[in-house]
């Protein structure tokens, strides 16, 4: 399989060197403030990621799935969402949750192991992280069907990785999206790896070409180019809102870190690969562009660095001081209305644990 970027097949509006590229079909024009804001978001998300990786090493988090290198794909796509839209992330979409207004400590809570959720999806327009590969693609298709039933022009974006395209659920999501012409954007971050499996081990066609066989358009975009990601996502969302049905976006990007903090990529990939992708870094690319165009200066970048430093402190302290959940809280919300047998178990655990506390009830 050819490298989508080198082959020039991917939509690009910003070259790796930070130069504005023109595209006959896709374009985007953003104000200076918004451009700076995109930069800020990516820097802050990366800093959270760095901090979370460190916190995991220190034993403060059970696990961390790094978004390093995928900031443009995540922040760029999620930026295109309106408040009424809904995002379905995997476990790696920290740039998405951040962009949906979910606080770092909220999305770090699961990785610390104090909850399996962390925020109210309905209120935030963003599902909790989904770990079972592909499940959320179907939730996205179904949610989009609900939007249709409501006669609303909201839209859905469902995220998944290159590896996930193997799963039945993702393909069934394509079927449901297609059959119901549902307002859903399937956003695949092809970060070249599914744990140890390189993209060559996927099926032999480029991922975005999968869409045509299900009857809707697929687009390949340079996932490290935030402008292109926004242009492509926005068009796909517009199509969804206006009855045009689903789109599959393949954002060609790279997982610069290990799969998770439990992973050891030296066992399966060469360091040189990383070097190539460093030159395509999504943040550096926008930074050079902003600087060249005079949209942001040294002072601005320093200011963002400082904000990131402060955020890192906030994350570090916040994670460390996250309240431990009460033991019996695990019985909460198993059902909307609990039942006798469960309440007996809750009571039993409570009394049992209290019996170890001096003076506790037996």
């Amino acid at each position: 399989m050819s490298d989508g970027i080198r082959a020039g097949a991917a939509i690009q509006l910003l070259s790796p060197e930070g130069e504005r590229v023109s595209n006959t079909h896709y374009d985007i024009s953003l104000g200076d403030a918004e451009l700076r804001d995109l930069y800020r978001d990516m820097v802050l998300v990366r800093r959270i990621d760095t901090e979370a990786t460190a916190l995991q090493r220190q034993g403060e988090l059970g696990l961390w799935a790094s978004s390093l290198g995928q900031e443009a794909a995540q922040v760029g796509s999620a930026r295109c969402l309106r408040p009424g839209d809904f995002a379905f992330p995997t476990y790696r979409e920290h740039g998405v949750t951040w962009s949906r207004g979910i606080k770092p400590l909220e999305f770090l809570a699961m990785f610390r192991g104090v909850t399996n959720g962390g925020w109210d999806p309905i209120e935030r327009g963003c599902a909790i992280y989904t770990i079972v590969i592909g499940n959320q693609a179907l939730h996205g298709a179904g949610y989009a069907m609900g939007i249709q039933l409501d006669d609303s022009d909201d839209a859905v974006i469902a995220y998944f990785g290159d590896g996930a395209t193997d799963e039945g659920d993702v393909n069934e999501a394509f079927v449901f999206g297609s059959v119901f012409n549902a307002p859903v954007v399937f956003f695949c971050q092809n970060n070249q790896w599914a744990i140890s499996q390189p993209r060559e081990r996927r099926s032999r066609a480029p991922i975005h070409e999968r869409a045509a066989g299900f009857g809707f358009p697929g687009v390949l975009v340079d996932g490290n180019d935030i402008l292109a990601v926004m242009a492509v996502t926005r068009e796909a969302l517009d199509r969804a809102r206006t009855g045009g049905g689903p789109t599959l976006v393949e954002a060609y990007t790279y997982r610069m870190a290990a799969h998770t903090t439990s992973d050891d990529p030296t066992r399966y990939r060469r360091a040189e690969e990383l070097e190539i992708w460093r030159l395509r870094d999504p943040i550096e690319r926008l930074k050079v562009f902003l600087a060249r165009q005079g949209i942001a200066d040294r002072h601005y970048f320093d200011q963002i660095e400082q904000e990131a430093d402060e955020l890192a402190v906030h994350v570090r302290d916040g994670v460390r001081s996250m309240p431990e959940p009460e033991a019996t809280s695990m019985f909460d919300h198993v059902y909307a209305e609990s039942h006798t047998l469960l309440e007996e178990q809750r009571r039993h655990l409570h009394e049992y644990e209290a019996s170890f506390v001096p003076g506790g009830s037996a």
Partner: protein
Amino acid sequence: MTAMTMAKALNTGLRRAMEQDSKVILFGEDIGRLGGVFRITDGLQKDFGEHRVMDAPLAESGIVGAAVGLAMRGYRPVVEIQFDGFVYPAFDQIVSQVAKMHRRTEGTVRMPIVIRIPYGGGIGAVEHHSESPEAYFAHTAGLRVLTPGDPQAAFVTIQQAIACDDPVVYFEPKRRYWDKGDVDEGLDARDRQRVPDPWQARVVKAGDDVTVACYGPMVRTCLEAARASSDASLEVIDLQSLSPLDIETLVASVERTGRLVVVHEASANVGIGAEIAARVTERCFYSLEAPVLRVTGFDIPYPASRLEEHFLPDLDRVLDAVDRAMAY
């Protein structure tokens, strides 16, 4: 009171639920114009439109996964799985998402999804069309499991299942679809005063010597056994809710009778009967005169249809177990 089949009672119950709540939508294979292979949704698409009664693609994981999304958008999807043996492709979505979503999201996302499954044997069907997979779902925390024993229960509990904010796997005893019974259509399923709690077992026949616990297709069988039993007086209890189990009603009965026989079509091994035996024995250790006996399908794949009468518990096998219990 109107005499109607269980199929008609379910159809009427679904209609009632759809009339009362516009968020109730039906979703499943061939449920629209065809009305489902058992016609349980007959006429509903015609009356409520294609938006409320949606034919689904042929993909069970997709159906349940999409229902999760629909529920997140505020709908109350009632999903039909065409036959028991075809629920397994949806198992992942049911176990990992439907059952856990409310807990995972700390109560912020509810899953008021009903998964309707015609189940059980006795209709001479081909493979995968006669299974009793309820144990898988009863073992899964976060799900509720209901199964009606007669048309009246079907009419009421399907509405209660739909009104429930928890996900309910609703098993319909397909070989009883065509059995008739009196249904009080005037009953408002929302009227908690007049309508029985769906999560409570029902004593469908009182008796003194042996308690017989059963559900779904076996309710009729056990009632027939009770009628046929000359030596022993049987108390027949329709569990109705397989998760949570209503152990209190069983305990109250067994404390009187001292004997319990559990009857189901599903295989014995790690089944509902095992759980009941374990719990009731723990609660009634000193009142049991005999161990809890199980009359169930054997621990084999459901056999070819010409053999099913040998596989399925029938009146005689129930009475045989009653005799054995009495002999202790």
